[in-house]
């Protein structure tokens, strides 16, 4: 029912959704902390085998994409859809770059014979099996969120082009932004927990 | 009872139960009585004009504080009882318990293994529970004790029998198809009788050590829960005359016949789900990691003779 548009409501709804997302990842963080507590040494050693430079790169990529996202909204609200589009497209590009890096990272691991249920992995210490179980599920779920985000970003791109959203009606883009920033925040925690264990 | 509950676990459970029951029943009766009384006393015919009463702070406080005190006392008795449950008395007689689909195996300190639990009367019994496959629940209703047997964990439990007799042991945690049949007996012997039994079994065990005999393995590894040796099918097919027979099996979606040779028997033990005997459910637990190579050879040799 378009006629009762309620911008405050939409945003509240989005925030509530984000809260539930926090707890979705929260479940994984609980698991992570317990297993790390139970296998501190092994988690440490396993983490050293991850590609830290790539992790840093990806962190920078996502942080920058958050900036471009915020700028895109900023310009849309200011009434310059052209620049908004530009920054939105950059966000999209950075998101893709992030996923590409993830893809590289995963393939390298798979080539080493480290993937779920791999015989090579199962030969190792139990804690390491768990580490990689968590690694694949947490970064995987996060990657999935990035992927979904990319889909929504593309739709937004299309909407701006069609002038369906503009400075009068920017809530869809703002909500997309909220989602995208949350995905970024999740990564901000995943990064030290997997790549920086010392 | 004030000042903490003492005694054996079963007595404690009963005391705490009675305490909570007394409080609960009184509250229930009170509420029900008031409810019915008000409904009749203030029915519309008799009381056509209602009176609005919005609340009463003192009542509100009263019926928050009193129940809180009541539940706290319930918590306290439950807890003191639980402390007794968790403190194994000194000098307890220890038995290791291995749960598996769907039987129990008891291992005594002298190495003897049984599938019924046999204990001396009047002595605290300390069980160390674990499982080799899924979670089971070790439960002796008569002694009001229960503890889950979890793979990868060793959970303790203790109890003490006051009288000689035989009692049911049940599996309380759902563990699959035959969960309801994962029963055994607890037999409480008088002290001397127990000692005699224990020594005799111990000697027998010493003699048999070193020569792993197939039939004992079948017993100990729980195979006989599902397989018979006399030709009748149970949960799984009978093992009698199996060797050399052609067995109809389902491999993937395909049906085929295979010759039961040594390789097949070994495969049946280690990867039971590759070939599933026709008309049987695919529930045989894989014995990988549960049997040593030597034991497998022994089992196969023995099965050939059946």
């Amino acid at each position, binding site marked *: 029912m378009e006629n009762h548009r*309620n911008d*405050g*409501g939409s945003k*509240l709804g989005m925030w*509530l959704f984000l809260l*539930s997302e926090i*707890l979705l*990842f*929260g479940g994984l963080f609980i*698991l992570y902390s317990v297993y790390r507590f139970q296998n501190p040494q092994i988690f440490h050693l396993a983490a050293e085998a991850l590609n830290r430079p790539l992790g840093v790169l990806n962190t920078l990529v996502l942080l920058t994409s958050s900036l471009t996202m915020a700028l895109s909204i900023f310009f849309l609200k200011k009434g310059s859809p052209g620049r908004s589009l530009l920054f939105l497209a950059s966000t999209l590009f950075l998101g893709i770059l992030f996923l590409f890096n993830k893809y590289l990272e995963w393939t390298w691991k798979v080539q080493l014979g480290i993937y*779920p*249920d791999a015989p090579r992995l199962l030969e190792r210490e*139990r804690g390491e*099996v*768990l580490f990689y*179980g968590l690694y694949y*599920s947490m970064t995987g*779920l996060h990657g999935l969120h990035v992927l979904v985000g990319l889909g929504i970003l593309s739709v937004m791109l299309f909407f701006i082009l069609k002038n369906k959203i503009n400075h009068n009606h920017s809530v869809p883009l703002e909500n997309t932004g909220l989602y995208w920033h949350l995905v970024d925040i999740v990564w901000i925690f995943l990064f030290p927990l997997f790549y920086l264990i010392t | 009872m004030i000042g903490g509950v003492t005694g054996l676990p079963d007595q404690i459970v009963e005391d705490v139960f009675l305490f*909570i029951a007394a409080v*609960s029943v009184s509250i*229930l009766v009170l*509420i*029900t009585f008031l*409810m019915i009384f*008000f*409904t009749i006393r*203030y*029915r*519309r015919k008799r*009381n*056509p*004009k*209602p*009176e609005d009463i*919005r*609340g009463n702070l003192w009542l509100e406080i009263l*019926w928050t504080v009193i*129940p*809180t005190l009541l*539940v706290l006392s*319930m*918590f306290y008795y*439950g807890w003191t*009882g639980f402390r007794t*449950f968790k403190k194994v008395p000194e000098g307890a007689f220890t038995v290791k318990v291995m749960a598996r689909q769907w039987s129990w195996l008891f291992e005594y300190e002298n190495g003897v293994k049984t599938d019924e639990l046999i204990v001396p009367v009047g002595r605290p019994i300390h069980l160390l529970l674990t499982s080799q496959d*899924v979670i089971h629940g070790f439960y002796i*209703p008569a002694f009001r004790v*229960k*503890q889950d047997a*979890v793979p*990868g*964990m060793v959970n303790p439990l203790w109890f003490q029998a006051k009288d000689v007799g035989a009692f*049911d042991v*049940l599996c309380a945690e*759902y*563990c*699959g*198809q*035959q969960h*309801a049949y994962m029963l055994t007996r607890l037999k409480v012997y008088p002290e001397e009788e127990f000692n005699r039994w224990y020594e005799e079994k111990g000697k027998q065990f010493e003699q048999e050590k070193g020569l792993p005999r197939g039939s004992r393995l079948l017993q100990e590894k729980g195979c006989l829960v599902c397989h018979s040796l006399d030709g009748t099918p149970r949960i799984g097919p009978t093992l009698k005359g199996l060797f050399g027979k052609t067995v109809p099996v389902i491999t993937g979606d395909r049906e085929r016949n295979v010759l039961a040779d040594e390789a097949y028997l070994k495969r049946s033990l280690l990867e039971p789900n590759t070939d599933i005997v026709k008309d049987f459910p695919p529930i045989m637990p894989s014995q990988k990691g549960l049997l040593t190579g030597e034991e497998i050879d022994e089992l196969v040799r023995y099965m050939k003779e059946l």
Partner: protein
Amino acid sequence: MSSFYEDEGRFRGILGWIFSTDHKRIGLLYLLAIFAFSAVGVLLGFLMRLELMAPGPTIMRPQTYNAIFTLHGVIMIFLFVIPGIPAIFGNFFLPIQVGARDVAFPRINLLSWWIYMAGAGLAVLSLFTGGGPVDTGWTFYVPYSLRTPVNVPLAVFAVFILGFSSILTGINFVTTTHQLRAPGMTWFRLPLFVWAIYATAWVQILATPVVGITLLLTLMERLAGVGIFDPLKGGDPILYQHLFWIYSHPAVYIMILPAMGIISEIIPVFAQRTIFGYKAIAFSSLAIAVVGSFVWGHHMFVSGQSDLASIIFSLLTFLVAVPSGVKVFNWVSTLYKGSIEVSPPLLFALTFIFLFSIGGLTGLFQGALATNVHLHDTYWVVGHFHYVIFGGTGFAIFGALHYWFPKMFGRRVGKKIPYLAWALLFVGFNTLYFPMLILGWEGMPRRYYDYLPQFHSLHLVSTVGSWILIAGLILMFGHLIYSLFRGEKERLENPWGGATLEWQIPSPPPRENFAEIPRVERGPYEFR
């Protein structure tokens, strides 16, 4: 003004229903779907009782029985009582009661119905694909659920999808309550039903994702062998139980809070006096929702969790019983000096108080550490939760159906038959479930296909109870369905003399509820 039934939307006929974003139509869609699923659940319960009528195999094989109690639990919990009241009555009445034309996100509301149906569809599909119907119990405990050859992945995925629907409904209700209240509808003028749904909605939003991720991980572990819970891969099966109950205990409050909301609506109306302790009831809903989120470990006292954890969880469990008690006492006090008419809705509400109290009080035995060791995983627990869920939520639904029937359907329910049906239900219920409590105390474990001979007589009584109960059920629903088509037309806006907003608009309500958004000037239970 024409009612929402006659309204011509974009589509006609059935499409006009399944693509309608009208909250009332969506509520009725849920009603129909949930009614159908619960009927299946009842049938399965009936079959279980037949099997347990006598020891030894009776009418089915063990594997069938195991699949049936799992399905019964999954249907009853995830398809019936969790969505139940919020999705049906919350959808229908929450917007009206706050004075809104619809929920905040009508299209998401429709989407969540579709997701619900998709989840249900997948659950049905899981019965006929993969290795066949699930046999894990509704709790899907690992490692059994990782080992059993049946179709666990699809079933777990179905539950995951259902959780998604539940979250969306919760988001809708929180937003509606915050944003769409009519002018003058202050927080303390909200009907208590709205308070209850509001508290529930928060639990739905914050607890559901935890079980979502747990089930997703179980799925991944089954399909891809990712090492998470499997002890063979170093995992900790107890951790699964933590994550599962972090949701599933609060879930029992998702089931009961809305039911308590209904009771708080019915009692003042039929006593024609204001509710006793409005704020105490409203805040106890929040207290139950908050404290109830931290008691999950009481399902794990004998699992091998640490003693310290057990002790803390037991303490918290007892604390959460207090706000439930506060509600009960306030309800009973509301009867005091009322002008009481024992119509069917009130009768069901009073029965709720009685049965829920029994259920709740039996919960205390389980919450106490010492007694739990004996009662855990026995029929005592089965008795406990049928008393709270069915005696509680179930009877609240029965009450709500009779209470709101004229408003929802514009027809009256006859006078006599509901009393007869109630009598059958009440007798049947207690004959069915009370013996279970005794069985549990005597040591009869749950999820047993077969049992030792000493348990026979009580099981037999229980089975007979199920027949009486089902007779009452058929009578009641038969009568309601009859009234739906043949009942006298309800011309009054306010047949019971209620003071909340839904009674100030025509029965059945028009499409956007209010011709003009009302200005609220008094509390929900000011009858004069």
